[in-house]
């Protein structure tokens, strides 16, 4: 496909050049408002913007080879099937899994976690067993386990964190016992930016024979992931946070575990043969992919992986951390601003509160200036409770952001304070 071939291999990182790949960035928001405001997109932890090649891949699919896959004998179906199947190999290589059988397509991180909680949980978790998560999980890595615990009379245990938003590893060790049957931890916190020592957690867990799931939703776009090196048992992530379309995602699981797990949903594709007496299931990875998959979006997800692969990842990552550091330094200079999440190891996410200014009011003010940030609890209510705040303002960065954009944010925060501060 032409869209794939057009991605050039490594060139020196140049933000102006990189921005050109993202058409959405070149617009003014509120165009009716005195000529509009240049969009400054700092909500990348919620979803990344899409490069033109990804958009083209979607259009190309629907314009030229839309068909249902794996069952058609005709030309279009074969072409679509091939493009779809190629993505599985791309995802495998992207996270360095051992085999394509270990790559299950899902609609995102949330579904991936639910799949494991339902399938693995149904078979292996019983009354009195304990499941360990961290104090900084997204709701999607809390609620599926709570549902499981409720059903099985199992118990949810939480690794606490310190005031900087770092896990207390000594407390983690204390939580481990023969009752511990599963650990599910977030790689990079979406509300604090903390990068957790997942490798250390996995090593400790494995000494007790406990499997570990890593929620990599906030990690995959920003650092290179090697599941074999991590030695995690499950790794989950979403396509839309790494330049792919919404509704795409992945569950990586070690083959032996996936083989042993019962199917999650029943339907077409996941079966080998069906009769009213007895149905046998398809082999991995299809056993976990019931129904017509999200063909178009998965194919474009593959293009997003190609796009990421063509970047100088290390350079990009350094640049993003530079943005985070610059934003943090500038924000800390403002009277009344307090950063929430000051871990030593952080990703490009800056969460903050302002004395006497409601986060929603300030976020809406920034929006009138074209600056898109997120406000609220970011689907991590327990984190807000831990810091005793109702919510934060969060700016999350991608390599297409610039220091100049951060200057507009900083100026906006200062003006929001003078407008909104309660005297």
């Amino acid at each position, binding site marked *: 496909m032409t869209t794939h071939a057009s991605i050039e291999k490594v060139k020196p990182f140049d933000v102006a050049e990189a921005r050109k790949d993202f058409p959405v960035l070149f617009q003014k928001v*509120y165009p009716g408002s005195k000529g509009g405001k240049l969009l400054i997109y700092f909500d990348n932890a919620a979803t990344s913007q899409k490069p033109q090649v990804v958009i083209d891949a979607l259009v190309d699919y629907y314009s030229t080879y839309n068909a249902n896959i794996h069952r058609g004998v005709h030309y279009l179906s074969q072409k679509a099937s091939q493009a779809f199947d190629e993505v599985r190999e791309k995802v495998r290589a992207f996270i360095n899994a051992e085999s394509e059988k270990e790559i299950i397509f899902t609609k995102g991180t949330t579904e991936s976690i639910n799949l494991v909680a339902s399938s693995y949980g149904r078979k292996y978790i019983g009354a009195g067993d304990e499941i360990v998560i961290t104090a900084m999980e997204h709701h999607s890595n809390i609620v599926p386990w709570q549902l499981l615990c409720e059903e099985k009379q199992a118990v949810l245990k939480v690794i606490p964190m310190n005031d900087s938003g770092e896990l207390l590893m000594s407390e983690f060790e204390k939580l481990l016992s023969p009752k511990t049957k599963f650990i599910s931890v977030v790689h990079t916190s979406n509300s604090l930016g903390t990068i957790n020592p997942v490798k250390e957690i996995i090593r400790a867990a494995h000494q007790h024979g406990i499997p570990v799931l890593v929620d990599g939703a906030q990690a995959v776009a920003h650092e290179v992931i090697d599941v074999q090196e991590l030695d995690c048992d499950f790794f989950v992530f979403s396509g839309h946070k790494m330049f792919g379309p919404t509704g795409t995602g992945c569950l990586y699981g070690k083959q032996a575990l996936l083989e042993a797990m019962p199917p999650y949903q029943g339907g077409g594709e996941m079966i080998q043969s069906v009769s009213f007496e007895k149905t046998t299931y398809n082999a991995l990875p299809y056993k976990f992919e019931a129904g017509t998959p999200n063909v178009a979006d998965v194919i474009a997800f593959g293009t997003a992986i190609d796009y990421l692969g063509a970047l100088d990842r290390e350079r990009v990552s350094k640049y993003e951390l530079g943005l985070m550091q610059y934003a943090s330094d500038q924000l800390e200079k403002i009277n009344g601003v307090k950063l929430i999440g000051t871990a030593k190891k952080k990703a490009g996410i800056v969460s903050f509160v302002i004395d006497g200014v*409601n986060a929603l009011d300030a976020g809406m003010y920034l929006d009138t200036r074209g600056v898109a940030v997120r406000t609220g609890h970011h689907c991590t209510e327990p984190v807000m409770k831990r810091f005793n705040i109702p919510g934060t303002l969060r700016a999350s960065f991608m390599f297409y952001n610039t220091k100049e954009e951060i200057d507009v944010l900083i100026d906006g925060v200062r003006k929001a304070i003078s407008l909104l501060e309660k005297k």
Partner: protein
Amino acid sequence: MQISEIEKEIKEEFELFDDWTDKYHYIIELGQKLPPLDDQYKTEENKIRGCQSSVWLHAYEKEGRIYFEADSDSTFVKGEIALLVRVLSGQKADEIVKSDLGFIDEIGLRQHIAVTRANGLASMIKQMKLYALGLQSRVEK
């Protein structure tokens, strides 16, 4: 004044603004001017929980009319409250219940639907109508 007349007045005020920034500033100003709710009414019972802000709503009946007082931790939401209070407070219960509050759409607030979801504007209106219904039935008994 009747509900429809007050709505018309508000629509005319908002017609002076041609962009969202100005409307935002105006609503913030209304919020800053809204007198705070007496602490005795800031109870769990009176609280309407939104995703990003909380609202406390107190209602009472006097001589066949329903009065509202409210507060929020968000100034913008207080501004929205100020508009709703201006339209609905002091009206008869049945008028409140049947009001469709079309002005919210017409002044361009509805397009900020994400905000509406966040601050619970819809649940605020629902609660005002519920209070009106409850207080009305108490009067009728």
